[in-house]
C-alpha cells in the first residue's frame, strides 16, 4: 500500500484509473458519434439492427455522458478532494472498487443499449438492473466524498468542493426520482409516471443531469485548475459564493423549456422560461470570475497552453448560457425546437466547454501525479487547435442548417399551403451533414493526439509501483 502513495499519503491510483477510463470511453463514444453522423446522410451504415441509428444514437449519448463525462468527473473529484482537504481518500479500497464497478457498468450499458434494452427516456435509457448498479456506484462515490470531507485537515471547503457536494446530492435525487419503474422482465420495465407527468419528470431530470454533470462539476474543475495552472488566485470569492447558490437554486425550475408548446401546462413552461433567463446571471458570474482572474496576465494566453484551454472553454460556457435562454424563449423556441440548431447548442457545450476543461485538467493532473513533465506541449497545442476548429465548424454548420430547416418547415405559398415537403427540408441538409462529419473527424484526430500525449506522459518515467 505505502509505495503507491505520494508525499502526503494521497492515493492517486483511482485518479489515474478514472483518467484512463475517461479517455477510453471518449474515443469509443466519438467513433460511434462519427458513425451516426454518417448515417444521417447515408443510411447504408445501418448494417445490422444493432448498428441502426435509433439504437446507436443512445450508445453515443450514454457513452459520452456517462462513460467519458462521469469518469472525467470522478478522476478530477478524487484528485481535488484529496488536495483541497489535505487528506487521503477516506476509503481507498472502496474507491478502487468504484473504479472497477463503474467500468463494468458502462460496458454493460453499451452492450444492453446495442441490444435495444432501453427505456427511451433521454439520458436515462438504462434498464432497471443497471439503474440499481448506477445507484450503488453513486453511493460508493458519495461515501468517499463525505468520508474524506469529514476527516479533512483543511478547515475551509474551497468552492470546488461545494460544487462536488451539490453534484453528489442532486444527481442522486434526479436519478432515483426519474428512474422509478416497475420491472416486467430482467430487461424491460415501465416507468411509474404517465404521459404529461412522465414528460415533466423526464425533462426536469434530463436538463439537470446535463447541468449537474456537464456544468456543476466542470465548474469545480475550472475553479480549481485555472488558479493552479496559472498561479493566479480566483478573482472574487464573494462572486463565486453568490453564483453557486443562485445557480443551484434556479437550475431545477427550468426543465420545461424542453417542452415548450407541448401539452404540458403552460404555467410550468412560463416559469421555466423566466428561470432560464435568470440563469444568465450566475453563469456569467463564473465566466467573469475566470476572465478577471487573468486580469493583467493575459499574456498567459500565449505562454501558458493550459490557460488557453480554460479560458476558451469558459468562453464557450458563456456563449452556451446565452444561447440556451434565448432559444428557450417561446417564440424563438417555436422556430428552433426539434431542429439541428439544438444539436449545435449541445455540441458547443460538450465539444467546446466540457472537453476543453476536462482535457486541460488531465494535462495538469497527470504530470503532477506521475512526477514527470507533460510529454509534449507542442502536441497539446495541436490538440487544442484541432478540437477548436473541429468544434467550430461542427456547430456553426448545424446552426446554419437548423435555421434553414426551421425556415423550410414554416415556409408557405401565397395561397397559404406549405412550400416544402418534409423530405425537401431533410435532403437540403445533407451537404451540412457531410461537412459536420468532416469536422467531427478533425475533432476526433485532436482527441487522439490528446490520448497519445497523456499515454506518453505516463510512460515517460516509471510511475509509482501499483499494488
Amino acid at each position, binding site marked *: 500500500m505505502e509505495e503507491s502513495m505520494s508525499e502526503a499519503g494521497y492515493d492517486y491510483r483511482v485518479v489515474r484509473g478514472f483518467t484512463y477510463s475517461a479517455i477510453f470511453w471518449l474515443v469509443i463514444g466519438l467513433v460511434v458519434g462519427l458513425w451516426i453522423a454518417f448515417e444521417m446522410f447515408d*443510411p447504408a451504415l*445501418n448494417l445490422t439492427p444493432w448498428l441502426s441509428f435509433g439504437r446507436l*444514437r443512445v450508445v453515443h449519448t450514454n457513452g459520452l455522458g456517462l462513460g467519458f463525462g462521469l469518469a472525467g468527473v470522478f478522476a478530477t473529484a478524487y484528485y481535488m478532494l484529496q488536495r483541497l482537504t489535505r487528506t487521503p481518500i477516506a476509503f481507498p479500497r472502496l474507491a478502487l472498487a468504484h473504479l472497477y464497478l463503474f467500468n463494468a457498468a458502462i460496458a454493460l450499458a453499451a452492450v444492453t443499449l446495442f441490444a435495444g434494452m432501453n427505456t427511451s427516456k433521454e439520458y436515462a435509457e438504462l434498464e432497471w438492473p443497471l439503474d440499481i448498479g448506477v445507484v450503488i456506484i453513486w453511493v460508493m462515490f458519495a461515501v468517499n466524498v463525505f468520508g474524506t470531507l*469529514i476527516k479533512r485537515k483543511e478547515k475551509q471547503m474551497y468552492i470546488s468542493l461545494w460544487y462536488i457536494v451539490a453534484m453528489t446530492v*442532486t444527481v442522486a435525487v434526479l436519478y432515483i426520482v426519474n428512474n422509478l419503474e416497475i420491472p416486467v422482465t430482467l430487461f424491460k420495465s415501465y416507468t411509474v409516471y404517465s*404521459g*404529461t407527468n412522465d414528460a415533466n419528470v423526464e425533462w426536469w431530470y434530463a436538463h439537470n443531469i446535463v447541468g449537474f454533470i456537464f456544468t456543476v462539476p466542470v465548474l469545480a474543475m475550472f475553479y480549481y485548475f485555472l488558479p493552479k495552472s496559472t498561479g493566479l488566485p480566483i478573482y472574487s470569492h464573494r462572486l463565486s459564493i453568490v453564483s453557486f447558490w443562485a445557480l443551484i437554486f434556479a437550475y*431545477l425550475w427550468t426543465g420545461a423549456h424542453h417542452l415548450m408548446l407541448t401539452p404540458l401546462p403552460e404555467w410550468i413552461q412560463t416559469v421555466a422560461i423566466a428561470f432560464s433567463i435568470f440563469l444568465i446571471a450566475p453563469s456569467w458570474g463564473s465566466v467573469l470570475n475566470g476572465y478577471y482572474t487573468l486580469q493583467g496576465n493575459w499574456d498567459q494566453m500565449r505562454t501558458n497552453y493550459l490557460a488557453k484551454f480554460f479560458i476558451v472553454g469558459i468562453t464557450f460556457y458563456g456563449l452556451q448560457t446565452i444561447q440556451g435562454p434565448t432559444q428557450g424563449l417561446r417564440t424563438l423556441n417555436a422556430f428552433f425546437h426539434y431542429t439541428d440548431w439544438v*444539436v449545435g447548442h449541445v455540441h458547443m457545450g460538450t465539444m467546446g466547454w466540457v472537453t476543453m476543461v476536462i482535457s486541460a485538467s488531465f494535462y495538469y493532473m497527470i504530470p503532477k501525479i506521475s512526477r514527470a513533465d507533460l510529454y509534449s506541449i507542442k502536441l497539446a497545442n495541436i490538440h487544442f487547435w484541432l478540437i477548436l476548429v473541429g468544434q467550430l465548424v461542427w456547430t456553426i454548420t448545424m446552426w446554419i442548417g437548423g435555421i434553414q430547416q426551421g425556415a423550410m418547415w414554416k415556409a408557405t405559398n401565397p395561397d397559404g399551403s406549405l412550400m416544402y415537403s418534409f423530405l425537401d427540408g431533410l435532403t437540403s441538409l445533407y451537404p451540412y451533414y457531410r461537412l459536420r462529419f468532416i469536422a467531427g473527424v478533425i475533432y476526433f484526430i485532436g482527441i487522439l493526439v490528446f490520448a497519445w500525449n497523456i499515454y506518453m506522459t505516463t510512460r515517460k518515467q516509471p510511475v509509482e509501483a501499483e499494488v
Partner: protein
Amino acid sequence: MGINSKPVVFAVISAAVILVGTVATVFIPLFIPSTQPVSPYVKPYTAVELEGRDIYIREGCNNCHTQTVRPLRTEVLRYGEYSKPEEFAYDRPFLWGSRRTGPDLNRIGGKYPDSWHYSHMQSPQRLFQKSNMPPYGWMAKNRLDTSNSFKKTSILGYGYTESDVKNQIDSCRSRVTAESYASKESRNQVTPPELQKDLTEMDAIIAYLQKLGRDVKNMEAAK
C-alpha cells in the same frame, strides 16, 4: 460563511435549495389531475399495439420521430390537429421526442393503409430514394413474442383479463393473416412464408402506428 466548514450541513442545505424548484414544478403537478387529464374517448392500447410500442422503444424510433404536434399554423397544416394532453394518459413512458429528423408521427394512424407501412418499413429508400430512415425489413422475420403481454397490460393497469389479451392477439392475427386482408400482398412480400400465418414484430409496430392519433378524433368530434 460558517457552513463552508460543515460538509454535512452544507449538503443538507444544498438538498433543500434544489428541492424548492423540484417540488414546485414537478412534484406538485404530479398530484394535480389537470396535468394529465383523461378522456373516455381515449382508449388504452391493445396488447398487440402495446407490443408494437415496445418495439418502437427498443429500436429508438423516438430518436428521429416526435409525437407532439404543436399548436402552430404550419405544423397543424403539415401533420394535423395539435396534440392534446388526454391523448397520452396511457403512455408509459411518453414518446414526445426532442428531435425531428423524420416527420412527427402523432397523427400517423389512418394516414396510410397497412400495405404502405409494410413497404416503407421494409425499405424507406425504395419509396423515397433520399430518406435516411433505416430499413427495418428484419422485423418481419421475427415472430412476435407475446409471452409477457398480459403481464405488461396488467402492470400498466389497462384492466384487461388474461382472455381479453388472448382475444386481442388472436383477432389481430386472424385479421392480418386472412385471405381478405386488404394489405395481404405487401405483407406477404416482406414476411417469410413460414411466418405468414403468424404475428410478426412488423405486424405489431404497424398496428401501433395505426392507433396513433385515432381516438382523439372522436374526442374532438364529440366537443
